[in-house]
């Protein structure tokens, strides 16, 4: 039984121009100790699907799923009150912008102790001791002093460490990191990623890493789930994915990596992710796909078998590679 099991997760937003489907029939599984990376361009529904899992979407969003099972509990069938006992304790999340994700009016120490007191019922002294311990764990020097600081008195990297300390404070079983390094500079990025992986090793928690940085994926993830326009278009373990991507979108993403560029000009994927009003009739990637034909433009593809990385494509790539191996 996997730690997290999502089946047929869809999220629709009620907008003035009608309903917009931001997440479309996504299936995901995460096990204990697993590192799953979710990649895709902006607007591909990576964050929204995880926010839906956490129950953090605004009231305009309608979440539907056949199964949304975390640690044996079906979250979609729980009351808000029961769900709050799990969210923030066993299921934690950190966000993209550490500077704005912490409340400017309270010290970071207060914000960490708050979760400990609410979920674990610790008293003031125990919470303080645990907070010091957590700061040491995430590598914040001089924890007693730093706990008294306000978020604006610390750097972005330090704030992200605070966010991580806060998220792991109750020993979560699954940590979702939503582009945790996007707002940070490169040296700090590596430190934060190392920290996340180290914490995963030490605690055995599952880790979901949402990112659009393929470099980050290659260094940290075990499995990769590629999303496009709300759909999961491919899922593979990290090595085979980099060696033999089956979906043309994955292949195009990899080709756009600067490290892989052979030409003077960096290869790009022309066009943008379709929005609310220009969703194609057939395959969602067909307008931007170099292999698309009339069949692709007319008939939406269904996911292929696991041997083809569940690719949502009529003409998956690298099929002979599969034969060779």
């Amino acid at each position, binding site marked *: 039984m996997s730690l997290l099991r999502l089946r047929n997760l869809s999220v629709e937003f009620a907008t003035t121009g009608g309903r917009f489907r931001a997440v479309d029939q996504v299936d995901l599984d995460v096990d204990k100790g697993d590192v799953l990376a979710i990649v895709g361009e902006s607007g591909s529904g990576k964050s929204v699907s995880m926010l839906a899992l956490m129950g953090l979407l605004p009231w305009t969003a309608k979440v539907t799923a056949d199964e949304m099972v975390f640690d044996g509990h079906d979250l979609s069938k729980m009351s808000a009150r029961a769900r709050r006992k799990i969210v923030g*304790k066993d299921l934690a999340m950190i966000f993209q912008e550490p500077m704005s*994700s912490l*409340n*400017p*009016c309270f010290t970071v120490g207060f914000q960490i102790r708050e979760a400990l007191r*609410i*979920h674990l019922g610790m008293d003031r002294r125990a919470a303080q001791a645990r907070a010091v311990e957590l700061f040491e764990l995430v590598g914040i020097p001089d924890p007693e002093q730093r706990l008294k600081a306000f978020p604006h008195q610390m750097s972005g990297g330090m704030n992200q460490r605070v966010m991580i300390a806060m998220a792991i404070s109750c020993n979560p079983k699954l940590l979702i990191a939503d582009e945790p390094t996007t707002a940070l500079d490169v040296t700090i990025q590596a430190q934060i990623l190392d920290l996340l992986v180290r914490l995963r090793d030490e605690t055995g928690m599952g880790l979901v890493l949402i990112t659009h940085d393929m470099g980050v994926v290659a260094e940290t993830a075990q499995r990769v789930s590629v999303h496009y326009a709300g759909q999961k278009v491919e899922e593979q373990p990290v090595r085979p994915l980099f060696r033999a991507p089956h979906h043309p979108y994955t292949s195009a993403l990899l080709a756009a990596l600067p490290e892989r560029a052979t030409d003077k000009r960096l290869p790009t994927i022309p066009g943008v992710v379709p929005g609310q009003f220009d969703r194609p009739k057939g395959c969602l990637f067909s307008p931007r796909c170099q292999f698309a034909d009339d069949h692709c433009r007319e008939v939406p593809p269904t996911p292929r078998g696991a041997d083809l990385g569940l690719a949502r494509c009529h003409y998956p790539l690298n099929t002979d590679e599969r034969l060779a191996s």
Partner: protein
Amino acid sequence: MLRYMLSRFATFLPTFIGVTLISFAFIRVLPGDPIIVMAGERGMTQERYDELVTQFGFDRPILSQYWDYLTGVLQGDLGNSYVTKRPVWDEFFALFPATLELSICAMIFAVALGLPAGVIAAMNRGKFFDRTLMSTALVGYSMPIFWWALLLIIVFSGNLGWTPVSGRIDLLYYFPDTTGFMLIDSLLSGQDGAFTSAVRHLILPTIVLGTIPLAVIARQTRSAMLEVLGEDYIRTARAKGLPPGRINGMHALRNALIPVITVIGLSVGTLLAGAILTETIFSWPGIGKWMVDSIFRRDYPVVQGGLLLIAVMVMVVNLTVDLLYGLINPKIRKR
């Protein structure tokens, strides 16, 4: 912090001078002659009139009159009332506690109802409670204060007979002014029913005076809360699994308080302006009524002095508000 305070004080002086200039000019622009008003229906001889003109200094150029007034003010002398001959300063402080008592009660009324109302409206955005509350607040804000006062008097004092029509306390009770605050004095006097009587007299004026600030505070709290509720740190608080009461009442409200405190500060000005009408309607013996009476008597020093003191109070309140920002949001303290 000290530098910040000094820079705030530096803006104080020009405003102060400006207020003296405006109050001095406005009362003189009004048609009517204080000496003729003083003489009443009997009139007076030309010689006596000329004598008084010289005595009050009205024969001198306007600028030199202003200069005399300004130098007096800067030395703490607001002049004497033409009518009672007593110093403006003394009259003001004899009447001020009555206004202060009423204003404080009105402000407590407005904040105690407006803040929770705004928070609840924001939490129920777009629902029935929100819409009802916000349209009621708009009505309250737009209602002419004197008309609202008369309506309340007709219903609660006239038809229902629950509250007295005017004054601060029943004539039955008499006790000396110890603090000038009727609620405190009536308690100190130890007379049976005095305190209840004082409270009953306060109810309607408090509601009338507090209505506009209440509406403004409720609407401002709602919009500030809605803005804050969209912030990333509120998402973090929800991701921590905190109960909604704690998220709204602590994480969001503390951040939403800055604009709310600003309007509370600005409401003090509205409150004192409203006090003039409210006190007149309820015959409340405070500075509002005193100012109106003085305007009709063309009592120049009283009007000038009263305006100036009110303006200074508003300025002090706003200065306090500026300093409060830093207490609420540590980020502002640093700048």
